[in-house]
């Protein structure tokens, strides 16, 4: 179930250079949304909508929050929308993360793959550790949000300007050695996801990854958004918008 409509932006700010944070008042979409799902955002003057993850869901206030980076002309156009403007979205789409009861989770975000971790981390509160990695300190977003949700945060930067100097896989490995969680959630660049999937396998921990692919319909009708998956030894071309964006890491063929 999803809806399409034009909804007011009730909050908008830049949280780092080129990274925008918007809260949309869309009670019907918010009521349906689960962490890990995404929305298709219309960019005026562009034919295809842009897929953006749902960062935070507030069912009580009927809002969905998105955090996105300007990567090209479409996201640039969307970033021009102001507080009070309407944004045309199709939401919520895809299937999100599996939430386990009474469990410990590690959420791993890489760069602009970090926003979808907020919604799922909030489900676990103090039972979640959020390991997030960024190129540099200036774009290390959402750390306060994770802390406000009660999560333990481990920040990594590629250049050492904040937190741990290195990739997210190192603190993840350490955590797996000392205090194995029940599940790992991850979103970020493909090489990072591949590394995390390998660690999860090595330590025998369940792991869900959120994938990206270019999309058109966003709802499973056009079949353009393929990714390679494996189930029971058989290869498939699955569709990120419908079968994902969240997949069990064991089922993703990262080659």
């Amino acid at each position, binding site marked *: 179930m999803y809806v399409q409509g034009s909804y007011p932006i009730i909050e908008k700010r830049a949280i780092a250079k080129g990274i925008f944070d918007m809260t949309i008042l869309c009670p019907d979409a918010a009521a349906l949304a689960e962490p890990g799902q995404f929305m298709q955002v219309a960019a005026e003057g562009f*034919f295809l909508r842009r897929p953006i993850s749902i960062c935070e869901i507030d069912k009580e206030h009927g809002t969905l929050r998105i955090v996105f980076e300007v990567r090209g002309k479409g996201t640039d156009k969307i970033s021009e929308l102001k507080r009070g403007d309407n944004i045309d979205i199709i939401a919520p789409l895809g299937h999100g993360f599996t939430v386990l009861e009474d469990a410990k989770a590690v959420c791993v975000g890489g760069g602009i793959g970090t926003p979808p971790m907020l919604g799922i981390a909030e489900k676990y509160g103090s039972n979640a550790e959020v390991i997030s990695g960024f190129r540099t300190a200036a774009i290390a977003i959402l750390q306060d949000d994770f802390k406000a949700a009660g999560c333990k945060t481990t920040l990594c930067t590629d250049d050492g300007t904040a937190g741990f100097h290195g990739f997210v896989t190192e603190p993840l490995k350490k955590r797996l050695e000392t205090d194995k969680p029940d599940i790992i959630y991850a979103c970020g660049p493909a090489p990072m996801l591949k590394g995390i999937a390998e660690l999860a396998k090595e330590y025998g921990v369940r792991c869900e990854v959120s994938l990206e692919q*270019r999309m058109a*319909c*966003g*709802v*499973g009708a*056009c079949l*353009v958004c393929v990714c390679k998956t494996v189930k029971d030894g058989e290869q498939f*071309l699955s569709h990120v918008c*419908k079968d994902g964006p969240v997949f069990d890491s064991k089922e993703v063929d990262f080659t």
Partner: protein
Amino acid sequence: MSERLKVNFCGVEFKNPVVPASGTYGYGREYESLYPLSKLGGISVKGTTLYPRQGNPGPRVAETPAGMLNSVGLQNGGAKKFLEYELPNLLTKDTRIIANIAGSTVEECAELAALIEPSAVDMVELNISCPNVAQGGAAFGTDCTVAAAVTAAVRKELKTKPLMVKLSPNVTSITDIAKSVEAAGADALSLINTLLGMRIDIKTRRPVLKRNVGGLSGPAVFPVAVRMVWQTANAVKIPVMGMGGIATWEDAVEMMMAGASAVQVGAAIFNDPYAPVKIIDGMERWCRENNIANISEIVGTVQPW
């Protein structure tokens, strides 16, 4: 819905002339939660092949000015799955069902037609124009002799169902192909399929699509589609279902004035999933305001200079 939009398309009655185009609407399941499929004139379902097909590797889509390229490559679950799983569900939706079929050889197309013939689909659309497959596809639709041969082979198997042949725009003369297919026994024509195109990422110097090239659709192709539908409708006696870039009710009216007896709406649905319904409602209103008793009155009424 009034009588104004009712059309008879080669013997099949459609409650309105608006049909989501093959490959852009799946089997309707994804849009049913937005509006009842019974609003639609019909649905041209995703291209079906004899056996399941995985399609091409990704990326399969590239944005273009006012449109998009796709290189799906006919990913589908095969004829058996269509007939046993998708069709029974579609038949409960109170809308016309057009089976869209494609094969890599003439024999395969004929075999598919034979499988579809006893089913309850309302008509068959033979795709001889897919630009995204290595065999069959556009290779069938760009040569008059081959196009006629595959049409005749399918015609032979389809004893009771109307046969509509879907033409490729990637030809020098659309009317030559149209006439060959008509002579080979087609009951109707549909056009246009996508135009072959390409996009390159200048940062990586790589094509955006993994298959390098793909089919262009969306508003960008609309004028080409109008021209081809106009030329074709004037060259044959059988009815034409027009498509290519239709996004608004005005586009649909224009396409019908060019000579289309009904229309299909494709890529516009990705931008606005309500597009087919908005087009139907807009046409209905326009007919009422202009005292047009039935939309068929406007078919081919363009008065060329």
